[in-house]
């Protein structure tokens, strides 16, 4: 089983320019651990001191906000595409 994680441009200087990562994490916690070990500089950008996902980081799984899928409790499926997207929305009223 493998999932693909897309790294946004804003964070690629912390991944030596790597735009995406394939790994076998089965949930969000494992995914963060995998990224932490591969890219130590990235670590503080994903979670806060309390270990929670950073407020301005949105995580999508196959187009869907992971919070709608159960958040940390969601089990990744084989082939899932995970997007890390900074929160810069706004444009409606």
């Amino acid at each position, binding site marked *: 089983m493998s999932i693909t994680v897309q790294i946004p441009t*804003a964070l690629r200087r912390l991944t030596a320019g790597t735009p995406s990562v394939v790994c076998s994490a089965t949930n969000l916690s494992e995914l963060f651990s995998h990224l932490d070990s591969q890219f130590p500089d990235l670590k503080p950008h994903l979670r806060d001191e309390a270990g929670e996902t950073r*407020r301005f980081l949105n995580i*999508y799984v196959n*187009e869907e906000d992971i919070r709608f899928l159960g958040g940390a409790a969601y089990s990744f499926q084989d082939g899932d595409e995970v997007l890390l*997207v*900074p*929160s810069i*929305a706004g444009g*409606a009223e």
Partner: protein
Amino acid sequence: MGTSTYQLRCRECGKTYANQPRSICESCFSPLEVTYDYDSLRAHVSRDAFASRAPNMWRYRELLPLPAESQPSLPVGFTPLTSAPRLGEKIGSRRLFIKNDAVCLPTLSFKDRVVAVALANARSFGFEVVACSSTGNLANSVAAQAAREGFKAWIFIPSDLEPAKILGTQVYGAEVVRINGSYDHVNRLCSQIADEHRWGFVNVNLRPYYAEGSKTVGYEIAEQLGWRLPDNVVVPMAGGSLITKIKKAFDELILLKLVDPKPVKFFGAQAAGCSPISTAIKQYSSEIEPQRPKTIARSLAIGNPADGHYALQAINKSGGWAEDITDTEVVESIQLLAESEGVFTETAGGVTVGTARKLIHQDRILPDETTVICVTGNGLKTTDVLVDKYRSSSETAIAPKLAEFEAYLASKASLSSAVTETAAVGR
């Protein structure tokens, strides 16, 4: 033209950046905001100087992030602030005002303010293409102002948008891309596109500059009240930016000694079918849970509001509150404002008026306080929600004969007296 020195600063870690198309801090991934040198500004701004200039938002140019060479040519903003005694009587406020951005130029929504500032910066950054994700009003404004300023425009919208808002974008020659998904999907896609293409996305990489345009609503309210701040402001919330920028405007006016310090309560308005911010307020939560929007107020249908956290803080710190109303109440409120004050607003304005009524009934807004309701868009763009309300009367046509008219009048009179009698019996 007078301009000020300004730069970008991270709202969380405080790291500063020279002016550039960037909205995220590279150190902590948090949003960037434009910041000014207020000490030097204080010597260069005055009520008289502002008042002596043309009635548009550029009269506050020192307080906006405008490149030195920019020469804004459109008379954006300075929309009417009108007292609303008839509406006030109906909903229980004796000092009620409408800030009417339904007549903001050039495209009849407050989005014209933010786009005007964004495009001035897009020009100085050398962009040839400007773009946005939008629920409609922003699309109209980017398309129109891009045409006027000579940019190519790419507009990304949810596919189910109101027809008038789609047509009102295409007419300016913009490329319109309809996306199967909600606004939140469109917005996520745009942040990915902005990563790949060197385009000026007004609400992505130009966002810090863009958002500053909203402050002019606050400056105008203060000036139009005679350089005084109101007691309460009721503001619609989608991404949550506008309410924070009106607060920033008031805070700046106090800092620059242009108004006397005074507490102002900020009240946020949402539709019940998309209410992530008002829900957090009402649950006394510091976290915003995203929602899947389901409301006719499509211009407010952002389920994952980027500035929600800051809106929440602004409201709570001010002692204000937030509420939400049903779609049925939204339509009733559009009619109530139109019938009381002759102002025809879109669904978002219905949300704001209806929410103001609810807050007054909850005694969160008191009758003798000065209250400003921010109407941000024009009703001609969302007529679809009203069609059913008037179908029966518009289907009745009569011949051009006086006798027919008299008969019509008599039938109307008997109908209304029958209604009155029924009502009397009902009592």
